[in-house]
């Protein structure tokens, strides 16, 4: 199975240098790799829950609880979506989640890039201690912090609004770490040039360094988007007010209240996952970069 495509690039390159006739490449490429028989079913299996989700969201409610269930709905029926938008507060939750994620991303981009740059390139008293302390917090599991943070936030009155969901996402140790790693990889000559021209640290940072940091900022934004949009446990603990429910919290509660309304549940699922799925399809490279970076923080 594997012999068919053992490093084809090498062979192609060799052939090219020896015989400039490129025709011999064509039949090689056409031959189908045995890996398709492995990968295609797996890919389908991974997509299946999503396919079911989309199908069920536009199925007539009766068909979803019939036996045996039809895999493809007999007709397209939007009652699930209509019920979702008419009978639940999903629009409010969507708005709340958007506010939380947008605030989290904006503040991450500002605070983490500032701190990342400071820790990477500026010299000041206490710098090494600061780096050490912030990296140290990565070792602390969030579960250890939940109870006191909840008590603190409820005393500050944050638990009655969105504030409780937003504050922990304003800046994270991982964000600072990510930006610091990136800034350390930039050549120092860039700043030297700016300093010779008489630019201040701030000007160097804004005009020279930050424009170069776009890839790292994209990674940071995606990390923050994924984390803040999908967060469930913290909003579950910290949000005490129905009007401040996030989307995840809202649909998680459906499990208790609308257990059997499958078309509505699936419609809610579509609404909750579609934004991120679309983002993923458009920015797959950056998502994969983010996943790799998340793994490298250890």
């Amino acid at each position, binding site marked *: 199975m594997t012999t068919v495509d053992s490093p084809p690039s090498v062979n192609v390159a060799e052939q090219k240098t020896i015989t400039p006739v490129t025709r011999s490449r064509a039949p090689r490429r056409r031959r189908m790799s045995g890996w398709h028989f492995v990968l295609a079913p797996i890919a389908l299996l991974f997509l299946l*829950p999503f396919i079911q989700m989309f199908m069920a969201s536009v199925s007539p409610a009766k068909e979803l609880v019939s036996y045996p269930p039809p895999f493809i709905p007999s007709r397209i029926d939007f009652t699930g979506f209509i019920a979702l938008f008419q009978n639940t507060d999903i629009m409010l939750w969507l708005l709340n989640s958007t506010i939380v994620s947008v605030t989290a991303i904006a503040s991450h981009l500002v605070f983490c890039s500032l701190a990342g740059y*400071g820790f990477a390139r500026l010299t*000041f008293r206490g710098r090494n201690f600061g780096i050490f302390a912030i990296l140290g*917090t990565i070792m602390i599991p969030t579960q250890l912090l939940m109870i*006191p943070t909840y008590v603190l936030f409820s005393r500050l009155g944050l638990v009655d609004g969105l504030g409780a969901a937003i504050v922990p996402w304003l800046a994270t140790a991982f964000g600072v770490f990510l930006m610091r790693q990136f800034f350390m990889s930039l050549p120092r000559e860039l700043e030297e040039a700016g300093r010779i021209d008489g630019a201040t*640290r701030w000007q160097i*940072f804004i005009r020279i360094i930050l424009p170069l940091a776009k890839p790292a900022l994209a990674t940071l934004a995606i990390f923050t988007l994924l984390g803040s949009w999908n967060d469930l446990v913290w909003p579950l603990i910290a949000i005490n007010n129905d009007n401040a429910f996030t989307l995840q919290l809202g649909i998680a509660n459906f499990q208790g209240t609308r257990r059997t309304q499958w078309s509505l549940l699936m419609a809610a699922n579509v609404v909750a996952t579609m934004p991120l799925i679309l983002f993923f399809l458009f920015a797959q490279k950056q*998502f994969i970069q983010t996943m790799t970076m998340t793994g490298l923080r250890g």
Partner: protein
Amino acid sequence: MTTRSLQKPPIRSHGVQRAQRSRRRVGDNLSGWLFVAPASVLILGLSFFPAVWSFILSLQDWNGFSEPEYVGVDNYSALLTDEDFAAAVMHTGVYTALFVPMSVLAGLFLAVALNRKIRFIGLYRTAIFVPFVASAAATGILSTYLFNPQFGLVNNVLRVLGLPAQGWLEDQTQAMFVIALMSLWGQAAFTTVIYLAALQDVSGELLEASRLDGANPWQSFWNVVWPSLRPVTIFVTIWQTIGAIQLFDLVYTTTRGGPLDATKTIVYYLWEQAFRRLDFGYGSAVAYALFALTLVITIGVVLYSRRRGQDAF
């Protein structure tokens, strides 16, 4: 910290120079602190302070309203004899034992499978990676639907194959397996991406050499690729284990600890104690026990791998 002052040649008299240098140092300190302060205050304020407070809470009996009462190590000693906690540790262990090997092996296999230039490879990658963006709430609803005993797709497939229907999430012995499987669905992308990145670092020359020596792809994999993936494997194992023993979300969105507490994990138990029963002291003790467990596992794996001569970090 002194490197910059060395770069400037001394041209002025000592006194002026020292004054300038100290002024510059004050300026350096100030601008440095201004850059790092907002994020540092937020991060350190929301971690070290609560971590210490949590430890103090674990030595108290407190429901959040009444006067906290100092009870010493009572919460910890109660934990040792708490059968529900022991059960939660067991359930977490079962999940970890199911999920970690599955996710590491799946990641390794998928990375090797995806690490080639064939047609549709982009499509395959997308299909396998896209579940990564599904939230626990969404995955929970999908799980209860797909594994529904009456009309779920999975039992329907079993029926077509002539196999008996299963209870899945409503069956004590199967619920944790379903949760592990759905976690894998969402997180296989992560281990796959890590292994894919590691595969790019495998020496092409060594692979070519082994091929020229007549090794078949299987032999090349075990003798060339696998040894160079060892450090990544240790890292991924630790990472996934830490994640696994903190399982909460998917339990909350599928079984809520049931059926008959069969999926009640440590963090679920913590959440129940602290935020359902408002026993903040006991909840904090559970949190510290979890922290200790995490540390022990991490240190254990690192020491074990050191002894085998493989550095993970």
